């Protein structure tokens, strides 16, 4: 039976290992399964006004809390 001819076993086993454990897994891991898109809440998209996003020197020194 030609299946029992062990002279070719080394190359067959080597190519099977490379195929099964690297090539197939790399190819299958490229599949992307994105989640179904859901509507985002509009409130979360509110952006800050420019004077709310960065502290600016708009307060007079005497109106700051006394230290």
């Amino acid at each position: 039976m030609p299946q029992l001819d062990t002279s070719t076993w080394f190359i067959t086993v080597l190519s099977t290992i490379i195929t099964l454990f690297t090539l197939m897994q790399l190819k299958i891991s490229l599949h992307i399964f994105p989640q179904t898109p859901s509507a985002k809440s509009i409130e979360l998209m509110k952006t800050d006004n420019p004077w709310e996003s960065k502290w600016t020197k708009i307060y007079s020194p005497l109106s700051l809390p006394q230290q």
Partner: protein
Amino acid sequence: MNENLFASFVTPTMMGLPIVILIIMLPPMLLTSSKRLISNRFHSFQQWLIKLIIKQMMLIHSPKGRTWSLMLVSLIMFIGSTNLLGLLPHTFTPTTQLSTNLCMAIPLWAGAVILGFRHKLKASLAHFLPQGTPISLIPMLIIIETISLFIQPMALAVRLTANITAGHLLIHLIGGATLVLTSISPPTATITFIILALLTILEFAVALIQAYVFTLLVSLYLHDNT
């Protein structure tokens, strides 16, 4: 006749170059990769198939067992595609070779068993002694359970090899008989042709079923050990 019958199972070499490497590396090249949300039919079909396999196979496992999902999906895709490609005429099927199947069965089985021994040592050793056995039978039963454990990878490999090889041999024999009978008596040839058609349908089913059975058993060994 013996030599001629098994000629299709010889590992193919072309002028001394082992082209069996290219044959085994063919199925991964049939898989597509796409970065789009919606791609063509071929890619969507593969995506649907992978999703079906994952849902069917990995539901019973714990999160630790589910880390094996990529391995099991690639296993079932590899065996299924090689078996189906082997049904084309004059092709070489790697899964008819004992070397390929042993190479698939032994590492996966050993991985599952070693995983079980590392993480659930007591439960893995408890598999050797089913509950409620009479005390006098214990030594013999442990020997039997050990043998049945070590025979699992052999059974996996030999089952796949024997099924696919036997199917291919039957197709060869009945196809040859039909060919010879057409010149001797056409009505008998039609009967054998119908048998051949039914056999080919069976072989399609066997190709897919064997892939499923192999992967299912590996997944079962994994479930026992996680």
